[in-house]
């Protein structure tokens, strides 16, 4: 166990869904600790429960049982409003399909989390620019997502996830829609940002080689259960 306060601590977390008469155990009694500034990859086949687990950590879903502590706070017991605040201030999220709002420019997309966090209007342009600088897309400020390549869109999504300076970045198959070279570039960027900003990253992926190369540790899930955790080859820090 790491000596410092863990970023995320899952304790016997289960998430069951009712499917007619039967109950599906999407996540079943998972206990896992993610240290601060760690890059953890959640691996597993489709339906293994890795995305469900990520949604639970993100506060988008609530566990049926067990507790989820993020920096010492049990998010399973938070009110709906407090959970929204947690998502807004502590969590940054990126998705396989980027989930940028196509009708908005990059600037507007990046401003959205700042609006939700009620960041002062005068402060926003600098924050947007800073986040876009980190992903090296400042020159595309006024463009719409559809005018960008897949890799660029994912970089914008990362910038949007970073704009509120979260402590935890959750990535759901971030390379799933990208070719391998672009995927690698994205993960390199994530790694770089992690060392710059000091974030904890939890990434769901089914691409073991990529995870081996970029993550600190791999956690493998199967049928909702945590099968194993092992240190990755990692890249020298």
């Amino acid at each position, binding site marked *: 166990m790491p000596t410092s306060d863990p970023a995320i601590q899952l304790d016997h977390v289960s998430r069951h869904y009712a499917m007619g008469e039967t109950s599906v155990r999407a996540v079943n009694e998972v206990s896992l600790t993610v240290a601060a500034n760690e890059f953890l990859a959640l691996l597993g086949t489709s339906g293994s429960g890795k995305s469900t687990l990520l*949604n639970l950590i*993100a506060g*988008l*879903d609530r566990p049926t049982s067990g507790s989820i502590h993020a920096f010492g706070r049990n998010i399973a017991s938070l009110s*709906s*409003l407090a959970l*929204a*605040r947690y*998502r*807004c*201030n502590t*969590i940054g*999220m990126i*998705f396989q399909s980027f*989930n940028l*709002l196509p*009708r*908005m420019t990059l600037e507007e997309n990046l401003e*959205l*989390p700042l*609006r*939700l*966090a*009620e960041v002062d*209007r005068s402060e926003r342009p600098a924050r947007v620019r800073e986040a876009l600088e980190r992903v090296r897309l400042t020159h595309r400020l006024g463009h719409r997502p559809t005018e960008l390549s897949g890799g660029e869109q994912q970089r914008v999504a990362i910038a*949007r996830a970073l704009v*509120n300076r979260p402590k935890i970045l959750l990535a759901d198959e971030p390379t799933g829609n990208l070719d391998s070279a672009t995927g690698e570039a994205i993960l390199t960027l994530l790694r770089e940002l992690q060392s710059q900003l000091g974030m904890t990253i939890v990434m769901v992926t089914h691409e073991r080689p990529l995870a081996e190369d970029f993550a600190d540790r791999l956690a493998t899930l199967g049928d909702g259960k945590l099968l194993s955790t092992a240190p990755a080859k990692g890249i020298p820090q």
Partner: protein
Amino acid sequence: MKPHDLTDLAFRNLRESILRNVLTTLGVAVGVASFVAIISIGVGLQQLASRRLSESGLFDTIFVTPKTNFRGMNRPRPEPGTDVPPRPLDEDARKEFEKLPNVLEVYPQIRFFTEVRFNNKPFGTVVAGMPDSSRNSGAFDGMQGRFFASASANEAILQIEFAKELSDKPASLIGQDLVLRYAERQPLPASTSGSGASADSAGASGGFSIVPRELHLKIVGVVETEPATGYGGYGNARLLIPLDTASALRAAQVNDLRDIVSDTPSNKTTYGSLSVRAKSPSLVQPIEDAIKKMGFRAFSLFDASKSLRIFFTVFDLLVGIFGSLALAIATLGIVNTLVMAILERRREIGVLKALGASDADVQQLFFVEAGVIGLFGGIIGVVFGWLFARAITFGTNAYLLRQNLNPIQLTSVPWLLALAALLLAVVVSLAAGLYPASRAAKLNPVDALRYE
């Protein structure tokens, strides 16, 4: 989210599906327009009626008589418990009435039955003195000829029925002379004090003699109906003369006989009755109460105007219910539009929630969108409703003019109605947004993000 961010996002969302939202807004506008137009007819009719009534002097006038007066058929009994000592209705009292707040004017009632000679033929009729303010009463609106040139002109206006008695062609009477024969009171020589130039002086302690007199009057107009200048007259007056002219006649009136025996201790000019006009019918009650407290008998037709207002309130309510039907249909349009928007923006709602939007944020966003549709629909609706009301008045007047009738202001859109319609549009739209907004707020973000 802060309010300006909410409205910002709401406007942006509305702009995205511009056609659908414009159509929905127009739906609201049509609903509001029909509401405004229908109500405006109700308000217009009410204003028409109450203007006619208030101009007639029936509802803004308080009829004051001394408490010692005998009780006639239509005089109310004095209220029990009001034991203010009676006072003579004299010049002092008149001046006090004039000083009361919201009193427009105070004038004596001069009405007497007498004989008129026209073409050397006698005609019996009631003569009434008209205050100059009656010039603005609706009754003289469509008159033939003109109103009195001055408050003391030797001129007469005939009531149409009386004019018909005088001539087959009433209009031809204008410009002709007639002779008014009347009985002038002359104080007996014994009492000289207090018999100034004023009208109803009955002298102080003595009596008066009656002397027949004649006055030549020029007919200047013929009027359809008699404008009411108060109550307590002796039937409808059919010959109208200026009030000052009437006062100067010192014609004997019925109450003179009562005054002579009542032994009024005052040696000032006393009046049989005074009409006190308030600035508006709604101001009548306090003035009436104040006069009663001074020790006079006072009454008004205020209660009648109150029931008239109740009638119109109910009328407006019924009309409003019909007018709201279109608005109710427009409401369904808003619900439909916003429910469609939820389906379309399902994924977007999921993203918003993943980025940290609370249920309340999402709910408020949809709420504001509904409110904006309502506000714009309301504004456009009020403008269209006003135009529509104008068109109704225009059309009605075009028809009335073709029928040789005077144009009227059939519809009216007062500020209050415009404001109320706007408010109603917003409130109704917000109510319509209630269900879609709560549905959007309850959307599970995990499901919403998975939705393609």
